[in-house]
């Protein structure tokens, strides 16, 4: 008996300070590291966005050199995609997947530590390029040659950083798949898994399929620049448009890597606060798988204007529009879940509702962009910027924030400040629309993206967008304060934090024990 107690105490004790975080193989510690890293990067990437918006407050050059402005648009995208949304979802997966499937930890805990600790080095290297001769990368996050090949000393560092991020993502994806397929509680069949686990399983396969393609593409950029090859150099018999095909074969599934886990989060939160089971569980699973499949056959809709055969344009237009079907199934199911539910509107639910409405706005503008002849007009305008920011900010970012509010009481054992949470939601929602909605009008009027200066007629909407961006940025300070406050103190959260919540994580204490499920739980 005493040996058992001693053994348990041994497992619960862990080093404090830096050693705990450097050497940890615990899924909760690594999840926490990912989430703090994503939050730090969110403010760094957000700072870059505010530099962009300050420059665009008025026409003419205000405070940045055009080269630095281009660096800011490029780095903002790279930081937000690879440094914020992907690590935040991986952090949520680390925390939640073992808890939701009834496992003790991830299947590969040591590799898990490595997956995370690659990231700070990758991003330190990426951000250091801003101080190199020739400045940081400035060709856009899509890295199209020949422009990207004119980058200064930053290019090899950028490419190596992308390789490191890819290695980290692939290792994380293998870990998630190995955990879900092998570590589930014995009675948890695949079709009993929570939707968040399902969406992450599919996302992990997407990651494995496309990250090597990005790695191959950027390696070819490297050899074109330093080893005399001509993959993308027309003068040497290469084809710059081939890079665009390679990039978007990675890039479009990447878009779904950034949103599928968000669908899982919303499918978890909406039933909790509607106090009803999710409507159409199996159709949600099949819709997610369909979206993942379709994401591989739509890539050229990003490059309609390069000039491709009519059959190609038709194919990519129709497959892109087809994605609206499974996405529509999802939105319908969320609304049907709420229909006649006993709904309450705590902060996670507010962010989930904001997601459903505003992500759908982004989806509709995506459908407009899918129409080939229409895209000829919208391509490379602020309409595209408005579209993908609606999908990614009130889409992916709102879902991540909703997930943090939803599970933070479980993680910390403390209830967050509901009043502050509501302030955070309303200010974020108002300002995100003030920022991005006018960009639709700017794009329709013909304002090109990725420029530091613009014609006088665009001034009004740009002023509004800049004011909105600063409002949105300031509103996120509430979130930072609230997270710190909840980690340190707050009313005790019970084990079953939310009355309507279902799932194995709520059977554990708040905060959960250091090693989650020592014995496999029973799933009904």
């Amino acid at each position: 008996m005493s040996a058992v107690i001693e053994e348990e105490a041994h497992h619960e004790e862990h080093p404090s300070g830096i050693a705990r975080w450097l050497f940890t193989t615990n899924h909760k510690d690594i999840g926490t590291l990912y989430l703090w890293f994503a939050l730090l990067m969110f403010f760094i990437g957000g700072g870059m966005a505010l530099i962009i918006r300050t420059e665009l407050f008025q026409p003419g050059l205000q405070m940045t050199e055009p080269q630095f402005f281009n660096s800011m648009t490029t780095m903002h995208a790279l930081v937000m995609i690879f440094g914020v949304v992907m690590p935040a979802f991986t952090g949520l997966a680390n925390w939640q997947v073992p808890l939701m499937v009834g496992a003790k930890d991830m299947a590969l805990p040591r590799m898990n530590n490595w997956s995370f600790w690659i990231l700070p080095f990758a991003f330190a290297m990426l951000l250091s390029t801003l101080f190199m001769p020739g400045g940081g990368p400035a060709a856009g996050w899509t890295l199209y040659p020949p422009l990207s090949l004119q980058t200064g000393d930053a290019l090899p560092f950028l490419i190596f950083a992308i390789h490191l991020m890819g290695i980290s993502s692939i290792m994380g994806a293998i870990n998630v798949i190995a955990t879900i397929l092998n570590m589930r509680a014995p009675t948890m069949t695949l079709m009993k898994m929570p939707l968040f686990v399902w969406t992450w399983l599919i996302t992990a396969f997407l990651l494995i399929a496309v990250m090597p393609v990005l790695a191959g593409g950027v390696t070819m950029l490297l050899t074109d620049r330093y080893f005399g090859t001509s993959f993308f150099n027309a003068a040497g018999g290469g084809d710059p448009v081939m890079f665009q095909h390679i990039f978007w074969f990675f890039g479009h599934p990447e878009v779904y890597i950034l949103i599928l886990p968000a669908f899982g989060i919303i499918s978890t939160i909406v039933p909790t606060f509607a106090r009803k089971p999710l409507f159409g569980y199996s159709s949600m699973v099949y819709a997610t798988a369909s979206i993942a499949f379709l994401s591989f056959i739509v890539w050229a809709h990003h490059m309609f204007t390069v000039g491709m055969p009519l059959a190609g344009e038709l194919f990519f237009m129709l497959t892109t529009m087809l994605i609206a079907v499974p996405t529509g199934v999802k939105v319908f199911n969320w609304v049907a879940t709420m229909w006649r539910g006993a709904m309450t509107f705590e902060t996670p639910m507010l962010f989930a509702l904001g997601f459903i409405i505003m992500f759908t706005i982004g989806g509709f503008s995506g459908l407009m962009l899918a129409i080939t002849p229409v895209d000829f007009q919208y391509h490379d305008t602020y309409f595209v910027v408005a579209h993908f920011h609606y999908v990614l900010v009130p889409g992916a970012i709102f879902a991540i924030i909703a997930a943090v509010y939803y599970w933070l009481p479980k993680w910390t054992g403390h209830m967050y400040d509901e009043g502050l949470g509501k302030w955070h939601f309303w200010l974020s929602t108002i300002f995100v629309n003030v920022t991005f909605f006018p960009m639709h009008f700017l794009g329709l009027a013909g304002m090109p993206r990725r420029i530091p200066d613009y014609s006088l007629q665009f001034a009004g909407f740009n002023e509004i967008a800049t004011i909105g961006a600063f409002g949105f940025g300031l509103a996120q300070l509430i979130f930072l304060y609230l997270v710190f406050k909840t980690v340190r103190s707050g009313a005790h959260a019970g084990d079953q934090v939310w009355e309507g919540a279902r799932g194995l994580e709520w059977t554990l204490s708040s905060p959960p024990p250091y090693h989650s499920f020592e014995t496999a739980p029973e799933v009904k």
Partner: protein
Amino acid sequence: MTTMADGWQQNTDDRPPALRRRIRWTVGILVALVLAIVVIYFVLMSR
């Protein structure tokens, strides 16, 4: 210095052999998948 083998770390040695085998197979197949994608990529690019 704290090492990976210390008790506070997740101990994977107490897993049943069948589970260890399944995890190894899963990881092996997934790594093979990644390598296959890389090979297909370079075959396509070298045409």
